[in-house]
């Protein structure tokens, strides 16, 4: 996009922001009457009999095997009971095809009233084109205060909030403690421990770490954390937000460590021909000792028929340099619900996503499918032990760097994924890797 094109919406946004700030000042009082405060007593002040409206809602939890599906359907059912005047027309589409479907729908102005999307740079093109409804006017302080701090930052652009999250995911290092014990290997606390563990397992013919590198984002799981642990949060964040450079010695070093691990045989054989599904099977069979992936993996580990339910432990990924902090994590809030800017029923739509995200937060947490972004009260005894471990582990978290491929915008994200695949295949050197990434910061 040219500079001018970018600047114009920027100015409009700035002007709109002033207006919305002004509006916000008075809205706290007024919005309490007009927009229904959600989870309290339902539609208590429905003095006038309202005509029922139908909202369309699209999401991605279509498969029964998905651990978010049942909780989500429960929330929808609860919403219907609590709000008989709002009917939801729900459509679920498989994740990969959903991405194409929703883009086409938004382009054709055929998008549903409410839909699932991903935060960060991923949603930026929708925001720039004015396709999403800014929620500032609809979120009173009380609603905001019920969410955990920082939750809204990934969907805030120029001070405007464009979505609500329900849960967050954390890049999580899973350790099969039984395999470690059986083979007398020390659970890694430092990089040296990690390489020693890799070599020890490889020596015994055990694949040390799982990765389904055919799905490039699985490589990025490892690369994101290696860079965070090597170069530290600040350096990464600056490079990713175009305020710094990728061409830093530490970012090169992070990439080099990935190739070093590959050379040691740390990963699944022929990883780049293997999908995530395939690569995870031996891990669930208890044959692979280490796995770094999103915290959603817990859902699978804790399945009733799981063979590794009691064998898995969660640890912090070891530190690679003094610039990083062991309490910097990857991941964060990426799955959100947004409202179509062209919806006929703005109030109802916002009311629906407020209800859905807050209640889904709770259900997802109970199902072990993610950490809630709302201050929810649940019966802690119902939370599975691994999720509890994760909560404990992330209690001292300092920062979260969103998955790089979500944080970056469309073509930049694609570039990152292409380059990390090439790095993994050793078709480029770490030096070349950062040089190629830097093109996204130097282009016009």
């Amino acid at each position: 996009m040219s500079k001018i094109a970018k600047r114009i919406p920027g100015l409009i946004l700035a002007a709109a922001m002033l207006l919305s700030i002004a509006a916000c000042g008075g809205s706290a009082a007024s919005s309490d009457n007009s927009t229904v405060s959600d989870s309290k007593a339902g539609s208590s002040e429905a003095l006038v009999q309202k005509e029922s409206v139908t909202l369309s809602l699209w999401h991605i939890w279509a498969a029964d095997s998905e651990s978010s599906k049942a909780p989500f359907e429960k929330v929808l059912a609860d919403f219907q009971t609590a709000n008989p005047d709002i009917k939801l027309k729900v459509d679920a589409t498989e994740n990969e095809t959903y991405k194409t479907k929703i883009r086409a729908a938004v382009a054709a102005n055929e998008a549903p009233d409410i839909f699932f999307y991903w935060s960060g740079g991923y949603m930026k093109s929708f925001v720039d084109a004015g396709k999403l409804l800014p929620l500032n006017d609809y979120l009173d302080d009380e609603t905001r205060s019920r969410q955990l701090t920082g939750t809204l930052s990934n969907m805030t652009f120029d001070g405007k909030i464009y979505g609500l999250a329900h849960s967050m995911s954390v890049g999580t290092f899973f350790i099969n403690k039984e395999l470690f014990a059986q083979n007398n290997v020390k659970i890694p606390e430092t990089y040296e421990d990690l390489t020693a563990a890799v070599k020890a397992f490889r020596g015994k013919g055990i694949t040390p770490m799982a990765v389904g590198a055919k799905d490039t984002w699985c490589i990025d799981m490892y690369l994101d954390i290696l860079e965070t642990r090597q170069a530290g949060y600040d350096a990464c964040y600056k490079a990713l937000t175009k305020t710094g450079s990728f061409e830093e010695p530490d970012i090169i070093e992070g990439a080099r460590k990935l190739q070093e691990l590959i050379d040691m045989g740390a990963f699944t054989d022929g990883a780049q021909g293997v999908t995530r599904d395939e690569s995870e099977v031996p891990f669930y069979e208890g044959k692979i000792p280490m796995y770094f992936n999103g915290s959603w993996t817990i859902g699978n580990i804790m399945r009733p028929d799981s063979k590794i339910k009691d064998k898995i432990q969660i640890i912090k990924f070891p530190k690679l340099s003094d610039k990083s902090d062991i309490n910097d994590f990857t991941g964060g809030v990426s799955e959100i619900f947004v409202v179509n800017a062209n919806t006929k029923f703005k109030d109802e739509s916002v009311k629906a996503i407020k209800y859905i995200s807050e209640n889904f937060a709770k259900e997802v947490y109970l199902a072990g499918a993610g950490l809630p972004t709302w201050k929810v009260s649940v019966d802690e005894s119902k939370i599975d032990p691994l999720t509890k471990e994760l909560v404990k582990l992330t209690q001292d978290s300092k920062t979260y760097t969103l998955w790089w491929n979500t944080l970056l915008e469309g073509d930049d994200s694609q570039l990152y994924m292409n380059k990390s695949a090439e790095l993994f295949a050793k078709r480029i050197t770490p030096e070349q890797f950062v040089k190629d990434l830097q093109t996204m910061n130097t282009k016009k």
Partner: protein
Amino acid sequence: MKSLKSQKTPLDYIAKSVIYLILGLWTIASLFPIYWLVCFSLKDNSEIFGGNVAGLPNHFLWKNYATAFMNGKVGTYLLNSTFVTGMTIIFTTIVATMSAYALIRMKWKFQKVSMSIMLLGMMIPIHSALLPIFLMMRTVGAIKNTVWSLIIPYTAFAIPMAIMIITGFLDTIPRELEEAACIDGCSIYRTFLTVILPLLRPAVATVAIFTFLQAWNELMFAVVFISEDSAKTLTVGIQSMSGQYQTSWGPIGAALVVATLPTLLIYLLLNKQVQKSLVAGAVKG
């Protein structure tokens, strides 16, 4: 052509065995997917991914079929797929036979050029047409979100190939029949309907099977154009069985078996006709 049977030397026997060996091996290679798919549909993830890739299932998990069908919509999806595919075949056949007849039998100025332009349709990367067609479809409110929004593009993309097959076949039908009908005072429309159409049966069978394959298996248009459960097709249903972070593949295998069966049946049914049409229309291509 019957040379194999004439004089038999030991060398002939060896040659013959080698030939049958090659033919046999390729048969195995060709039929293997069916065997494999059926086995796949009766296994769980750990067998599918590594435990037992090609063998018979250790435990026959018939419940995979139950799981695939538990999603009560599979019936609707199957029905929709059948309707969409059936309609696409019918429209393609009607439109393509008409066009082919005008293109090859009638006499007009831009015949050759028109033929070439129509065949252009085969060269379009279908994904690039996705958004433009979607943008156009939404302006026609009546077909939006219905199976018709699939039938129309499927038909359009099937027509070029169909025209090619039918013109090839038409060329082999002697003109005398039509000329006789013409002398008898038949109108051109009647001639087409009563004389030509019945002769085209083998070609239509060929068109039917290729169109069937295309429409029955199509995914991207079906995903993007339809957001209404009542209008979704089987491929979309199967696709939606795979999850973002976890998928059980056994039931997907079962659904794939269900989706593949009609294809095999149709093929068995039309095989002979296809053969006839290709043999007849062959030389012209």
